[in-house]
């Protein structure tokens, strides 16, 4: 096992793409454990041969189509109407847009790419600092993978063999809490008199149209959630229908999307999905080698260390995920750790959904934690600022979101309450 860990660490730190680093580390492991090299293909195939996993490309392509189909502009107009002309209205509108957009996109990067372009460039014109605008949108972006539909949850569900539907429903409350945490930081800034009045308004004559378009956009997440909870569709089928709905909105209703744009969206989504799926395929080989190498003994030792202290285990996991998140993206971290840690949490009597939500939210923080958080880079690029400038403002949002993780650790009902109540 140490051979895999060492080779993986060297290859990852050396800068090799994570999927290939996992693949090569697995080959080292297969060689050390004297296992058949044919396992490479068998396990890659097993990793990819999953119907649940197929919801991921649907949500990715739906997000791409929504982005290219003029959805973000309409959503922002809608949130501006909802928030109204209060002091700091644009900042609150950004938080609300992040929560609502999360119901459409499914990934943090899609959120920040869509909302960042608008808010990071427009908020400084109202008197906000560029760093604050970027920090707000960056912090809000991690709500994307928490509120359903969520690509990361699809992948997690496939790898950990957990109900994707329960995970989707469980993500709603933590996602809203993350939004409230961001809103609280904005509110505190307002108490110190640092929020300018809003200038983003929608003219009265455009109100009905803007509200109608906003509701049309928001009917997509509603359709996915209620369609799957009621059992009419599986999450994978709902993903396919979401794609058609996104095409309908972009091409027919908003007329913002043409055939060339449509094909570009599919190509882009295929590339993104392929990179993700290759990662899943190679992680499957690593997990196989780890099992053969005796990871089970290691997990038993871990259980004995935290015996009768499930909360302590959760806190230790959160700290570990936050540290791992400093170097590793949320997806690979979850793929690698879920199969290892979930059996430990089960042995300690922690609810699967509770543990999964703590794990997913903690790992997602890696997307906005320096030095390699991908959302940080996107934000810095849009705002043309340094990581240091951004972090100076972002840290308060980061701490507030860590507070939400602590709430999730100490109050399991925040994760398990809604899925248990709705019983999908």
């Amino acid at each position, binding site marked *: 096992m140490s051979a895999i860990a060492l080779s993986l660490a060297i290859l990852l730190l050396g800068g090799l793409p994570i*999927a290939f680093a996992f693949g*090569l580390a697995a080959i080292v492991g297969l060689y050390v454990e004297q296992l058949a090299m044919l396992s490479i*293909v068998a396990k890659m195939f097993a990793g*990819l*041969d999953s119907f649940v996993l197929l919801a991921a490309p649907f949500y990715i392509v739906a997000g791409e189509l929504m982005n290219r189909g003029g959805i973000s502009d309409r959503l922002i107009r809608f949130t501006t109407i909802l928030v109204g002309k209060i002091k700091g209205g644009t900042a609150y509108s950004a938080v609300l847009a992040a929560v609502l957009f999360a119901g459409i996109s499914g990934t943090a990067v899609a959120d920040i790419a869509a909302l960042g372009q608008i808010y990071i460039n427009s908020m400084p014109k109202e008197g906000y600092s560029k760093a604050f605008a970027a920090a707000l949108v960056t912090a809000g972006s991690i709500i994307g993978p928490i509120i359903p539909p969520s690509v990361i949850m699809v992948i997690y569900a496939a790898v950990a063999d957990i109900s994707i539907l329960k995970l989707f429903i469980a993500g709603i409350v933590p996602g809203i809490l993350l939004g409230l945490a961001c809103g609280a930081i904005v509110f505190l800034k307002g108490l110190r008199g640092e929020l300018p009045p809003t200038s983003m308004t929608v003219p009265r004559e455009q109100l009905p149209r803007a509200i109608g378009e906003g509701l049309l956009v928001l009917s997509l997440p509603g359709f996915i959630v209620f369609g799957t909870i009621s059992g009419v569709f599986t999450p994978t089928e709902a993903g*396919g229908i979401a794609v058609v709905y996104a095409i309908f909105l972009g091409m027919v209703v908003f007329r913002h999307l043409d055939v060339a744009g449509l094909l570009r969206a*599919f190509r882009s989504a*295929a590339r993104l999905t392929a990179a993700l799926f290759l990662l899943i*395929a190679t992680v499957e080989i690593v997990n196989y080698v780890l099992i053969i190498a005796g990871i089970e003994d290691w997990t038993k030792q871990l259980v004995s260390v935290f015996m009768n202290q499930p909360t302590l285990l959760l806190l230790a996991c959160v700290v570990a995920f936050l540290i791992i998140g400093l170097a590793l993206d949320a997806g690979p971290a979850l793929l690698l750790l879920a199969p290892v840690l979930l059996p430990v949490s089960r042995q300690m009597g922690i609810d699967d959904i509770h543990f999964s939500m703590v794990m997913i939210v903690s790992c997602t923080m890696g997307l906005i934690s320096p030095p*390699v958080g991908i959302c940080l880079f996107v934000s810095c690029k849009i705002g043309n600022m340094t990581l240091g400038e951004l972090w100076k403002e972002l840290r308060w949002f980061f701490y507030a979101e860590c507070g939400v993780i602590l709430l999730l650790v100490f109050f399991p009902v925040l994760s398990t309450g809604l899925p248990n109540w709705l019983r999908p």
Partner: protein
Amino acid sequence: MRSFRAAVRNLVRFCDHAAGWFLIAIVIVNLAAVFMRYGMLSAISWSEEGIRYLAIWMTFFGATVASWYDEHLDMNMFAGSGGATFQAWHKAILHFFTAVFSGFVLWQGSVYVYLNGMQTAPTTGIRIYWVYGAIALGGLLLLLVSLAKIWDSIDPPTEVEAGEKGQLM
């Protein structure tokens, strides 16, 4: 070597379109399955298996394109550090490791197809080499891209070549 680069560029262009069309096919089959089940009350028995196999093909074509554009996730600790020569050799070494893994996938994938390829898939009824073959072919495509990228790192393409590469975006 110039013609090899040009060939790989064309191959990547083809893979990019193919991956997109595989995704379109996945969406169509998925929708057809939903329509048949709820509209015609008659399920398409092979839809789930078909979609899974299409996704495997899409993965390897798409991963090849992602490799060409350096879109695979990495930790990127050395980005921007060192001089131009260090950067070039660092990239070349990384692509060499990618090539090693791709070579393994090609080799073992081919053996796997040879040993198991004549089996039949449960519901689609196709020979399974159509599925496992995607993994072997994916290994080959990734290997070719990695070799081209090693060469690009050591001997960067001319402006004309880079322009052609840019057009792929």
